[in-house]
């Protein structure tokens, strides 16, 4: 049986351009209705893109054998964007950098499967292809694209939405 670690801010601190995994996982807990049980996350990356591969590896390390958040446990698998298919079996996708040309198809798949997409790439959120953007420098900023959330049928608790930037 794999050990599951709690989320602690500051552990496995990501590089500035990489997704802050502890915060991204926390964001998942604010989805309504509250998720329970095992949540499998797809780490979408481009095997041919060094930055994307590096971020995917970093995310995988941060998640490790699993992170507990609320009443659920998050585990992550690397998924090459070319083989993501319909994203079936996933409830969340972490979209790495370097996938700008694929963000459109990712959004289509995510909307069909009602998958929450989270990225450190602000442009992905601003263009409505990702639901949530997370940046942690100089301080944590979370951006939620309302239209993208609606398209993927994702709803967040109001307390969370009052603390983030909605566009």
């Amino acid at each position, binding site marked *: 049986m794999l050990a599951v670690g709690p*989320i602690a*801010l500051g552990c496995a601190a990501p590089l500035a351009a990489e997704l802050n995994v*502890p*915060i991204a996982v*926390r*964001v998942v*807990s*604010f989805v*309504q*209705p*509250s998720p*329970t049980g095992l949540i499998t996350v797809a780490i979408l990356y481009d095997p041919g893109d060094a930055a994307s591969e590096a971020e995917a590896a970093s995310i995988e390390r941060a998640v490790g054998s699993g992170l507990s958040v*609320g*009443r659920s446990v998050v585990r992550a698998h690397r998924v090459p964007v070319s083989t993501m298919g319909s994203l079936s079996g996933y409830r969340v996708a972490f979209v790495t950098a370097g996938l700008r040309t694929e963000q459109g198809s990712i959004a289509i798949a995510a909307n069909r499967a009602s998958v929450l997409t989270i990225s450190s790439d602000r442009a992905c959120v601003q263009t409505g292809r990702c639901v949530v953007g997370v940046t*942690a420098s*100089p*301080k*944590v900023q*979370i951006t939620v694209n*309302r239209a993208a959330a609606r398209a993927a049928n994702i*709803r967040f*608790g*109001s*307390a*969370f*939405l*009052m*603390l983030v*930037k*909605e*566009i």
Partner: protein
Amino acid sequence: MRVSVPCASLRLLLLTGVALCPAAALAQAVDYQALQETVGEPVTTSVTGKPQRASELPASTVVITRTDIARSPARDVPGLLKTYAGVDVNRWTAGQSDVAVRGGVQTYNARLLVLVDGRQVYLDHYGMTDWNLLGVQLEEIQQIELVRGPANALFGFNAASGVVNIITRRVGDAPSAAATAELGNHGIGKLAGSLTLPITPMIGLRMAGAHAREDERNVSSRLAQPLRVFDVASDQISGDVTAVFDGLEAVIGGGHAVNRQVEYLPSQLLSNQHYLSSNVHGSVARDTSWGGVTLNGYINWLNAKYGAGTIANANDALVLKNRIIVTQASSLVSLDSTNMLRLGVEYRNNRLVSAFQFAERIAYDVVSGNAMLDLHPDDRVSLTVAGRLDQLWLHQSGMISQPAYDDPRDFDRAFTRFSFNAAVLVHTGKQGLLRINGGRGYQLPSLATFGSRLPIATPSPIPVFVAGSPRLSPVLMWSGEMSYSHALGATRLEATAFVTRTENAIASPGDGLQTELFLSPQPSLVARFRATGNYTTYGTELSASGAIGSLTWRGNYTWIHTDEQLTALTLPIPYALSPRSTTPVHKANLTLGYDAGRLSIAGVARYTSATRQFAFSSTPQLLLYHVDDALALDARVGFRLTPALEAFVAGENLSLANGAAVSPIPADRRVRGGLRLAF
């Protein structure tokens, strides 16, 4: 304690809640811990009612987190607050503390509203807070929020100089417990604990309790005092059940607390008190697609027995029975992706029963409506405006004490007050924030100052009474401030300038005894609680905090000046109110914390400049006593024996500075040690 709730009041409580209950919608109550972990800093709802980051609030606010509490040498809420800028904590006795914000130091401070999870623990009978009767343990606190400056627009009367909102931990997904056992010098002994237990995924239970005692400080024989001075003792128990159904969160709970201690009354006489308080409370929170709705209701009962020696016929216990019923409903409405409207209504009934007042029952009803608008025209600027209208009806009923010193019709009175807050925030670059805010608020006369009628012991051949006045008006407070904060990496700097104006401040009669003579049926003299004048407080607060490796540090300096137009202080002193004398001009605090594996060390150095404080001498005469300036050192060392168990020693006023308590009774050194369990 006997508890009686009139059916009519209960019906009103229920009807109000039902009438305001909204259509079904999905819900999520505020989980402060989860939100803090998400945005990387504390989150509070105490300023506008909506969750906001601590670094982006439209009012001067302190948030003391669970981590801060665990590391601190302090052992109660005033002890935690005293190291922050703009906060004065006077430990008049070992048990009695008063917390004043930005000046206006006095005993039984009526200007700071104190809440636990939004439920008032401020005591309305005299308009004060007994910090040993809160019914909440440090072990169960998620965070303590202090809003400096009037916050009446959100919280109503008595948030005149600020609000302390104590937020307790939510029941999590796994059982958790925290307990402390400690012993120390001066008879210190404490056993406290809290437990949260998820019974099912949808129902959680929380319980907490404590027993504590300590010896009273040595009271000099030059000060008037009761023949026997109580030591401090308190017992508290509380619990609640939280249920989440279809996203709707409901909480129901209650508590009981007992406290015995010697206190300085507003008259500045030392008196032994025995308090019993109980409460029941319930709340429901729902999210909607457009915001959220919260319904809240509670009943607090207080049975206060004031000590022998404070009134002429000392064989009669001076008993005051206070009951307050509050129902509140509020709704947050998202106007669009960035702008927010909050609407709220409130009803409260407040009743005091005693043989020592104008009539058997003095009561008032208050109906209020409030609104808050939070606007963000662009990413750099935000504007917050809030207003509240309170309508109060004063009553008396039951047998009227004879001779009556007021016309019964004086108690059939109603008045309306409007309070407001406004703030502008401007982000200057990525790291700077300019805040300009202000407001107008009111401090309501307490039920005792409206209707008390106390025979007092004097050498006068004619009986003398201290009486309230039904004609008193709420004390008006204006405030304005400007603040700039800037982050430099892990270091945060803040500078604030503020001014606060208090008009028609109410004071208790001193020994000047400005009296009214009543001739019928027999001669008697009456000294009244009275509005004695105005005062203005202005000052600056400078704060900085940061971290260097494992070392955390926080420092602040406060300068306060008071101009007062109050009654004279020449002997005999007619009224015990002089914020200029009682408020320290200079205060500075430096807090250091160091964590190294299993070892944690925290130290606090506090400087307070000299003051003069009121007290009755043994003659007895009301005098202003000089209190020395003080450099007090507090410290705590903890060593984790296991991940869940810590052994600790802690001490307050290790430097044995007499003036550290800012009281006519000199401070002593209190050291304790014990075990702390947390999992």
